[in-house]
């Protein structure tokens, strides 16, 4: 593909929407990764993916909008899981419980509803070219919310992510912040699944945060680097996928993976330990 072909491809509305969605998600979703890594709640994203699958199954059976259903159900799951954050063992046990129950219910709903399961499982690999304007708008809203929350509460967030007890003793509203973070993470993941698919959503969330952790020296600089890596990874991945005529999801993940590996190499060269 030459440059002229690329530009003519870019004039197509679905491609433009997908490109815009990637830029917007590159700005906001790496913060989700920063929060997940900071709170050490990696299993949450798997739980949310499974709950989203259940929502799509319910949407199919009951003829409701799967995105809206997924957002609502995932937000509710995030809210419930946040209430486990203060327990000594944390929330991972509850996350595992919700994950298996959600997937079991999804299979049951699909079976009882007698609908074609393929549409539900398309969620696993996503379809960026099928992104609707309303989904782009949603990504815009969630990215703006994430960025606003971060810069408004970054001092409280830094302390909360560093040491929950110390944050509580310092008057940080840890309960409210934790609920906000869990719900935002859940909703953002549910909204981003369409871009890369449930299996590859880490490309736009966790990987930029992991790469940024190797470069930044405090929460704010880590967040800024995560956004830079997320944006660059999405743009580079998109261009590479289009020029090589390959599926976008895997190319995005591999691009983000290369950036992450490079950050670890940089860190090793600096003599630091990640």
């Amino acid at each position, binding site marked *: 593909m030459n440059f002229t072909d690329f530009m003519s491809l870019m004039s197509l509305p679905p491609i433009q929407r997908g490109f815009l969605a990637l830029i917007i998600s590159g700005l906001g979703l790496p913060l989700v990764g920063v929060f997940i*890594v900071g709170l050490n709640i990696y299993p949450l994203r798997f739980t949310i993916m499974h709950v989203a699958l259940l929502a799509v199954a319910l949407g199919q059976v009951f003829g409701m909008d799967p995105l809206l259903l997924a957002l609502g159900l995932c937000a509710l799951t995030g809210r419930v899981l946040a209430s486990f954050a203060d327990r000594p063992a944390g929330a991972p046990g509850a996350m595992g419980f919700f994950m298996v129950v959600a997937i079991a219910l999804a299979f049951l709903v699909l079976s009882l509803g007698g609908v074609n399961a393929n549409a539900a499982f398309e969620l696993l690999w996503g379809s960026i070219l099928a992104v609707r304007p309303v989904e782009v708008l949603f990504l815009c809203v969630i990215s703006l919310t994430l960025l606003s929350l971060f810069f408004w509460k970054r001092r409280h967030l830094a302390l909360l992510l560093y040491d929950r007890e*110390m944050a509580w*003793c310092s*008057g940080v509203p840890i309960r*409210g912040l934790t609920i906000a973070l869990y719900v935002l993470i859940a909703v953002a993941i549910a909204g981003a699944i369409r871009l890369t698919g449930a299996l590859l959503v880490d490309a736009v969330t966790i990987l930029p945060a992991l790469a940024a952790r190797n470069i930044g*020296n*405090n929460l704010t600089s880590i967040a800024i680097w995560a956004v830079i890596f997320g944006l660059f990874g999405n743009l580079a991945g998109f261009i590479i996928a289009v020029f090589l005529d390959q599926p976008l999801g895997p190319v995005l993940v591999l691009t983000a993976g290369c950036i992450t590996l490079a950050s670890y190499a940089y860190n090793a060269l600096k003599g630091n330990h990640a």
Partner: protein
Amino acid sequence: MVQDVHLQVLPGEHVAVIGGNGSGKTSLLRAIMGLHKEWAGQILLDGKKVSTKPSAAHPGVAWMPQRQPRGQFPFTVRELLSAGGHEQAALNAARGLDIHDLLHRPLAALSGGQLQRSYLARALGMLSAGAGLLLADEPTAALDFSGQEQVAQLIVALPATMIVVTHDLALAKKCQRVLQMAQGRIREMTL
């Protein structure tokens, strides 16, 4: 486990709590902070019951913990000093404690003594912001001899109500009252 503890600390009073490892000293401080969720009885701070609910605003207590660095990300001394209390007062305290040139260093990269000084600077910032009580857990641990003396002098000169858990008898002697904890119980003693 701490049991049958009745302790009243007057405004401006300095109380040292000494005792062996596992005697309940740190548990006592954590209970006063509201960090222990399972306890019976009452803990009142300025006449108000201490809450253990994360949704409730915590009363103004400056906490100087004995705590290893935590978290998944680097957390700098500057972030620690600015994340609660009066930032400028904490920065001034950092200067007085000779850690001002460490502000951009992550807590995980500090020595034990530097970490203690950082927590103390933060606690002093919180006192300046209106916290009415200082709870210090082994404030002179991990410090060299001159550091121990410097921190002890600084702490006892503070015009604040404080409870200091310590193994440092020199520091305990500087306090107005000394309590000994053993097997979760507390008793007054003289040094």
